[in-house]
């Protein structure tokens, strides 16, 4: 298989994954913030095809769970109460991509029962729904943050490389400053001085801006390097000799040369930034409850009792693995198609 077709397959898979998260409302059976105080920390429900009497059903079903008397987290399966899995049901309202209002869900519990395939959290909220909706927040933060960091990096890197001289010197010194810091400490210090208790949307924007502001340095350095070498290429000199203006040269001849570097950087930055958002939210400095993100869904694992008693609370971690895999493969394919690798480019994964 050629690199190009592999690249297409990888891109298609990533698009599908993102589409799935973008349509979280449809795949998630419930509202991620809807609480069910009767079922805190309910374990994942098993789907059955064969009932207690040995009869085979085509429609998968589950048994209702009810709290054991006198306990707060132990459940008994109620064999008498069957919850069939129904497809394409109408349920809680949501918006696809924040625009299209819908009520249709891929599946849901029939007969008025709730179906928590991955269990519930401390407020009885459906974990599957929270993972899917949380992906929207985390991935969007990663994507927009990477976009921001890349645009800043592209502008500064191109300016530094193209203008040269003292401006190059100053810009690269500042970039080095940002590179020298352990990025998460920088993230912390920036987050430290911004308001703590903020509405979720504002917190989200804050994180994105902080990510962009912290992460621009490496792309800027790489872009500068490419611009520097492109500037000396023969066709660029020729165009300059024909009297092309600086703006034209940059736009037409030099920036296209940086495309492969920028794309590779994008593929490495997005998962890094998703992880950064997760870390911040996990530590309670990111997107606040009740809005789910992959980080704050995991936050309850910081409590010892949750860690030992409710293994399903760990499941959100697995949600990001396919995404990370996709981006890793994408980055290495882009690098393979973009010519010889430089240590700097690979090093960005550090």
């Amino acid at each position, binding site marked *: 298989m050629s690199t190009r077709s592999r690249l297409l397959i990888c891109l298609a898979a990533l698009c599908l994954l993102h589409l799935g998260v973008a349509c979280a409302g449809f795949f998630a059976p419930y509202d991620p913030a809807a609480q069910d105080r009767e079922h805190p920390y309910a374990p994942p429900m098993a789907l059955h095809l064969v009932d207690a009497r040995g009869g085979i059903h085509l429609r998968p079903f589950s048994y209702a769970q009810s709290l054991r008397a006198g306990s707060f987290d132990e459940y008994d399966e109620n064999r008498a109460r069957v919850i069939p899995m129904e497809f394409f049901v109408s349920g809680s309202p949501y918006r696809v991509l924040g625009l299209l209002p819908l009520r249709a869900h891929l599946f849901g519990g029939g007969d008025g029962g709730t179906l928590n395939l991955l269990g519930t959290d401390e407020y009885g909220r459906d974990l599957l729904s929270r993972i899917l909706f949380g992906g929207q927040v985390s991935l969007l933060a990663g994507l927009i943050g990477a976009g921001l960091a890349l645009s800043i990096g592209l502008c500064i890197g191109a300016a530094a490389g193209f203008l040269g001289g003292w401006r190059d010197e100053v810009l690269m010194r500042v970039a*080095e400053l940002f590179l020298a810091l*352990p990025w998460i*400490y920088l993230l*912390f210090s920036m987050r*430290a001085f911004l308001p703590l208790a903020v509405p979720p949307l504002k917190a989200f924007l804050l994180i994105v801006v902080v990510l962009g502001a912290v992460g621009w340095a490496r792309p800027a350095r790489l872009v500068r390097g490419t611009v520097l070498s492109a500037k000396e290429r023969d066709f660029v000199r020729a165009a300059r000799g024909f009297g092309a203006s600086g703006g034209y040269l940059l736009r037409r001849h030099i920036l296209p040369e940086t495309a492969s570097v920028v794309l590779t950087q994008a593929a490495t930055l997005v998962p890094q930034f998703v992880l950064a958002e997760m870390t911040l939210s996990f*530590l309670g400095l990111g997107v606040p409850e009740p809005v789910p993100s992959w980080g704050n869904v*995991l936050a309850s694992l910081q409590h010892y009792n949750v860690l*030992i008693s409710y293994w399903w609370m760990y499941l959100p971690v697995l949600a990001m693995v396919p995404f990370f895999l996709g981006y890793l493969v994408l980055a290495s394919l882009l690098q393979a198609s973009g010519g010889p690798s430089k240590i700097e480019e690979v090093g960005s994964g*550090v």
Partner: protein
Amino acid sequence: MMRFLLQRAGHAAFLLFGVSILAFLFSTLAPGNYFDEMRLNPQISAERLSALRAEYQVDRPITLRYARWAGALAHGDLGFSFAYNTPVAPLLWTRARNTLLLTGTATLLVWMLALPLGVWSAERLGRPADVALSWATAVLLIIPDLALALGLLILAVRSGWLPTGGMVSVGFGEFSVAHKIRDLAWHMILPLLVLVVSALPVLLRHVRAAVAGALEAPFLRAAEGHGISRKRLLYRYALPAAAHPLIALFGLSLGTLLSGSLVVEAVMGWPGLGPFLRDAILARDLYVVIGGVLLSTLFLVAGNFAADLLLYWVDPRIRAGTGR
């Protein structure tokens, strides 16, 4: 030698200066401060509050505060913690020591693993053993360190094999020296494992690529033709030739491990800078945060400086002043 050293030291000083300015700049972006929270407390009168504000000089312009802070720093004074009501420096130092212990050991371990494994893999480039190792590193690469830390913690909790939090056991003070070391090492295993496993794949890839590149060089072919043993060829000839980018990578790996250690510390309850800084942020304890960030930069700068010295020692081109 002197010139090179001075140049690097000047660079380090510039970095630290820049970071301190950045940290202070961010603090002006912040609406509110530590004492704003106190306003909500009915037990603290308005007069007391304004007295406190005057004492800590939170209302003065930032340039003045920075000048005062930088002046104090020259005496080794990192400012005063609002929340702990003591100077910042000793507070930070006890935590930084623990972080340093963890990060330093992890750095050492990672490189001790990455170098031989990378060389071993480069020697077998494209053969099944190398391919298997590449796959293994790819798998490790897609597991985020947060997931790894939580997963290992769950394993440890469930199995009960390893301690799951903190740095020492109860009653550490009365242990004998040998017992103390054993206890500390026992508690370090889990956080170290996370740090090493999350940093190893990237380093391994670099070592492999660098050594594989060096093995292609004509002088190595010639050396091989002279009948020099394989082992000597790899470690005495190829590795030094590949050292330049690897030493540059050393600084990077230090930064990664410092950042990673922050997460690991928070998850595993290691009493280092990570959880301390998090709490300081939540309490808006300005000087603790600035001091912590500055200290972590200092670690990094020191590490890079050491790498530069190493480079100077290893690479004759730099000694002659023609390299870089």
